[in-house]
């Protein structure tokens, strides 16, 4: 399998705080990688490196190399960041639809990136909604406000929104933590379906979720990547004692 994302000795500082300490990881294409670990371990910060979301925070310093498709994404000029973000979609912890109609939510990424062709946009919106397994539920109310959807539907809408601009990578920051079990199940099913088209990285607090949906799992602790391996290996027989303690709930 081709390597999609590669990080070499990545360090991240927020001011004086050393948030990530020399992370090395190679993520193959079209797989699901789960990042697990206790709160504040740096997994979310790590995820946000891939679409340069950390740029928005003051006092951030990043060392090391992060390669996506063999390009160092921190060596590109500022004007290329938008293009990077088109390639790397993101889904957030809580459903965060825009205060627009369902249709416009999904079309947003297309519009802000300069597409005007109405037919093309309609086609992409439908495709994305179908991919997100939401089309059947919303096809009759595309003009309704996105806030009228349930929490789980809103989150799938956000996934559709991210997919509409056809990224090759999907970053998911605890995408189901604010949802009920049924909606969570649907999101997990969706992730499982999507991996045939996308390289997915998912941050999760929920170890069952990590084991259910992912092919690879990385365990973070205090800004370090303790272990990174196939999910089967991590959950059956982890190398490191810390990993074992964490996933068996003996952490502390």
């Amino acid at each position, binding site marked *: 399998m081709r390597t999609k994302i590669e990080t070499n000795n990545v360090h991240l500082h927020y001011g004086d705080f050393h948030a990530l300490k020399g992370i090395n990881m190679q993520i193959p294409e079209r797989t699901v990688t789960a990042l697990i670990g206790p709160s504040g371990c740096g997994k979310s910060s790590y995820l946000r490196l891939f679409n340069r979301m950390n740029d928005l925070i003051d006092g951030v310093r990043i060392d090391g190399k992060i390669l996506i498709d063999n390009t160092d994404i921190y060596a590109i000029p500022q*004007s290329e960041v*938008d293009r990077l973000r088109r390639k790397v979609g993101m889904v957030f912890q809580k459903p965060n639809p825009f205060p627009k109609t369902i249709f416009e939510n999904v079309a947003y990424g*297309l519009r*802000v*990136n*300069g597409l005007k062709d109405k037919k*093309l946009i309609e086609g*992409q919106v439908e495709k994305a909604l179908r991919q997100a397994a939401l089309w059947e539920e919303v096809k009759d109310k595309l003009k309704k406000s996105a806030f009228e959807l349930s929490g789980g539907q809103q989150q799938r809408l956000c996934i559709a929104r991210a997919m509409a601009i056809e990224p090759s990578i999907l970053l998911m920051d605890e995408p189901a933590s604010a949802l009920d079990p049924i909606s969570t199940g649907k999101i997990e099913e969706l992730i499982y379906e999507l991996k045939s088209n996308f390289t997915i990285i998912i941050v999760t607090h929920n170890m069952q979720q990590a084991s259910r949906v992912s092919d690879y799992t990385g365990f973070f602790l205090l800004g370090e990547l303790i272990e990174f391996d196939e999910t089967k290996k991590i959950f059956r027989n982890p190398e490191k004692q810390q990993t074992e303690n964490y996933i068996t709930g003996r952490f502390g």
Partner: protein
Amino acid sequence: MISFPTQVDRKKRFHQAIAFWIARIISYSILLILFFILFFILKRGIGVINWEFLTAMPSDGMTKGGILPAIVGTLYLVLMSMVIAFPVGVLSGIYVNEYAKEGAIKQFVKMMTNNLAGVPSIVFGLFGMALFVNRLGFGASILAGSLTLALLALPLIIRTTEESLKAVDDTFRHASYALGAGKLRTIRKVVLPIAFPNIITGLILGIGRVSGETAPILFTVAAYFLPKLPHSVFDQAMALPYHLYVISTSGTNIQASRPIAYGTAVILILIVLGMNLLANFVRSHYSRKVKMK
């Protein structure tokens, strides 16, 4: 695969630069206008202010002399209105936040105090004139004016109190109840001390607001020209904002009294500035104290 227009990112950046510069320029212009107002008045008025200006009676048809009666009148009005409004306002705030149960009564009191806050000051003036000046027979007097101004300050104080109390975490209350303290005791010993700095801040801002109000005192206290100090609360009095209004629009010699007008305006600005600074000081002083605990 969809393909995006090639130049789209450059275009986006260009639009952003333009939009941000417009916002920046507008913001600086607003700031400039506001500063211009302040400096325009301060520059012309600051030279007028001296000991005599502050302590002398007006003379020569208010073109010369000082503004002592106006200062004293405003002082009376502020003090009296606050003495009336502060306890009533704080107690009302306590009622709304601590006592009133959810439901019709609380809704009613809240709605009414909210509406009170939106009533234009001239309507307070009308009301004050109808009730205090005429119905209760106080005549145009410091008492009638203070009562009117108190009504005006009331919603401000109620709201500040309410919000300060709301900011006190419920755990403090529960802890106090758990120790066997009653409701009143809890409010007096636990809730109020924590909320107090904010309430005081509200009081100070209320003073700033009341001292500058003109419309409510037009018909309830203000004397056009009264070169003596008031002796009792039933006397008419001059007041700073009304004085400024009068000498800038209908004095005997408007041009000649301009310096006095500038001076009066500066005094009013300084009062507001002082009250703001004081409020900020109180806020930061107490918040540091609370943090240290």
